[in-house]
């Protein structure tokens, strides 16, 4: 693919033309005629520095002298959007840690594995929390104020919403696969336990009754332990399911914001047309509102009352004068 860079040529002309402009104090750019020599040069450069202030945004008064245009301070919502993307980055990192924790918890281990469970719980909560907070701030991003910026804000919101949706989906997929594997493990363990306990009962039948009682006690405690274990697993599963549901809610909210790819809304020319159309519409609505307000009953009432007041004052004065 061929391209051609004209920047160097452009810069050459720009520098050459700048030199032509400034030393002679040529009035072509300053627009005010007048005097000769010194004062003209001063006026010209004064006017020029004035002009460098004008186009910059008003919250950067320390505009430089001729030359570089400083990047003005961005509006406040940019900070919000940066915060949201920072949150999402953190959530992504936490999800990586969570994946590792999942893998470790699923591996057969000797210990109770309770520390792993706790770590997983904590991480899951953190991630869900981050995602929910991001979503709330995202909703707030779209509200309020002016015209120009609103387009930019809407687009920023859309792009963040798409990223957030993808992140949520990934999180839920990981959750559900962990859930599935957990269920499988639980059933496996149950099976193993039962088998062991059946074998235990079989072996005791050959022994005495005394020993029978003892073994059944051991059995009981084993059963109790496996019950407690199951209950705990149930609890975990419930928690995971709950977070799945929460995420589903977030997904639903986000789907309104995200653009469907391949539809007309995804076309640049459609969006440009719509902006133009809606700005016109808005202008017309404003005019209509102005007219109805002028015609409105409120204005009539107010004027009538004011006239009445004047009449009363006049009558009062007349009364005073006559009497």
């Amino acid at each position, binding site marked *: *693919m*061929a391209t051609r860079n004209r920047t160097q040529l452009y810069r050459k002309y720009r520098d050459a033309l700048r030199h032509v402009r400034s030393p002679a104090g040529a009035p072509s750019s300053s627009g005010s005629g007048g005097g000769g020599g010194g004062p003209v040069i001063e006026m010209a450069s004064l006017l020029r520095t004035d002009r460098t202030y004008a*186009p910059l945004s008003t919250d950067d008064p320390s505009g430089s002298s001729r030359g570089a*245009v400083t990047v003005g301070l*961005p509006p406040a919502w940019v900070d919000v959007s940066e915060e949201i993307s920072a949150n999402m980055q953190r959530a992504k990192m936490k999800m990586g840690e969570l994946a590792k924790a999942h893998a470790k918890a699923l591996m057969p281990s000797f210990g109770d594995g309770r520390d792993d469970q706790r770590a997983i719980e904590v991480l899951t909560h953190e991630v869900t929390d981050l995602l929910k907070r991001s979503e709330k701030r995202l909703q707030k991003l779209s509200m309020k104020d002016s015209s120009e910026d609103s387009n930019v804000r809407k687009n920023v919101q859309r792009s963040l919403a798409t990223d957030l949706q993808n992140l949520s989906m990934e999180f839920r*997929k990981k959750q559900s696969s962990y859930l599935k594997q957990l269920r499988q493990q639980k059933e496996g363990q149950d099976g193993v336990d039962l088998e062991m306990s059946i074998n235990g009962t079989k072996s005791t039948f050959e022994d005495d009754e005394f020993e029978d009682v003892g073994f059944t006690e051991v059995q009981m405690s084993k059963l109790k332990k496996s019950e407690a274990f199951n209950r705990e697993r149930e609890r975990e599963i419930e928690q995971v399911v709950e977070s799945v549901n929460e995420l589903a809610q977030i997904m639903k909210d986000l789907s309104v914001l995200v653009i469907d790819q391949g539809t007309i809304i995804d076309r640049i020319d459609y969006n440009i047309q719509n902006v133009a159309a809606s700005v016109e519409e808005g202008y017309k609505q404003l005019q209509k509102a102005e007219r109805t307000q002028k015609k409105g009953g409120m204005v009539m009432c107010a004027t009538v009352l004011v006239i009445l007041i004047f009449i009363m004052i006049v009558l009062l004065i007349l009364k005073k004068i006559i009497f």
Partner: protein
Amino acid sequence: MVLIPLVRDYIDRMLHDIPGMKVLVLDPQTVGMVSVVYSQSDLLRKEVFLVETIDNASSSRESMAHLKAVYFLRPSADNVQKLRRHLAMPRFAEYHLFFSNILKIPQIQILADSDEQEVVQQVQEFYADFCAIDPYHFTLNIQNNHMYMLPTVVDPPGMQSFCDRAVDGIASVFLALKRRPVIRYQRTSDVAKRIAQETARLMYEQESGLFDFRRTENSSLLLVIDRRDDPVTPLLNQWTYQAMVHELIGIENNKVDLRGFSNVPKDQQEVVLSSVQDDFFRANMFENFGDLGMNIKRMVDDFQHLSKSSLNLQSIGDMAKFVSNYPEYRKTHGNVTKHVALVGEMSRIVEERKLMLVSQTEQELACTSGQVTAFEAVTSLLNNESVSDIDRLRLVMLYALRYEKESPVQLMQLFNKLASCSAKYKSGLVQFLLKQAGADKRTGDLYGNRDLLNIARNMARGLKGVENVYTQHQPLLFHTMEGIVKGRLRDADYPLVGNHFQHGRPQDVVIFIVGGTTYEEAKSVALYNAANPGVRFFLGGSVVLNSKRFLEDLGEAQRISKSSSII
């Protein structure tokens, strides 16, 4: 490499190296060029959060110094003037200027002069000056397309701007492909000759350094031909999906506007038909109407099956799976609704205008049948009340193009009948068409009846019978392509520009049709490319025609030529 990825690459490179939040400023032409290859969500991914046109960007006074501006414009005098005003009062922090074609030195000087604040960081030429609507099909969307039918003396500046735009578009295609071609043009067409010669001058003399790609010079070919050499293809009714939608409803830059039609659901008022984004469309765009109906029915059945299974959600696992697949589900739902709406609308129009009947006669007029049967068929259709005016006009035109020499008396009879039946269309238009594109004016062998070999071939085909009466027409372009590949394109008919010589067979061929292409020809090109991997054909034109547009151009040209005192 095909056209759509080339333009996408250009846009990617524009946006890639500039970090931070950006605004993209386009002009009315480049909006179309960018919209067909890049979507809004692609832009958002590249951190472009605002898109404006150069007109409304200047009217607003609000400064957004936290954004960097990327301008992608055509290098026209108008745009340079508007850009001057923008640079004199900059609204954005940085300005990166990209032009879609070659800048002239005075233009660069003007811009450098107005850049007092020195906000411009780069000025580049990225040669994406065409609308890549399909992988092998591009268009230039020229407004005053009817110019090509008029002699230059009628409107010299108008003709100059038409030719300039065509040359610019063709040059940028070759720069994007990085090729410098051998150029051939149709001898009988003055416009084609002019465009070919100006392109040659640009590529070999004025900017020869830019075009010097150090490849075997003769492996690519540009062929500039005139629409009037094949006036039959735009007049015919179409039965393959993409061509049919354009013929009956109208496609503009891959968008279809269904707002004028009733029975269309609210969210399908405007739809996008893109072979890149829509898999079903890519598989079916060249299928005929019957097969298309079956495929749509299958798609709808699959979708119903999917939606029914999603209705009985038994467990939480099912619910979770449904919610995670919801975006996919919604996209499929939208797609199915879109195609069903389009096909439904087209069926209704076919029914209303009795197009099955009309099209059968049209195809016979274009491909086969003797003069007497043709005359009878056309007469009976003219008498038929339910045939619309525009269809009657088309039938008479097709008859006239084929049998203008054979029996003038019967032709006059048809003219009279047309004038009496339809109030809007007079026979003057048909005669104007004959003057423009009659048998004397045409180079190519449109009906395959000029030399014995073709006549024999036609008779053989007639005896064998055709598979589908409605799609039997093969556009003249197909034979031209075969001629190029087999080296049978006669120098007398299609001379070379300059003294370049074509060694062997070209590998890349761009065919530019002055006056416009049709989707039927684009289909022909795409299918030929798929069947013959050794050569790649690209097709482009000044606009994409359907019969309505072709007749409008004809009418406009006729009106101007009548009012001008020269002709």
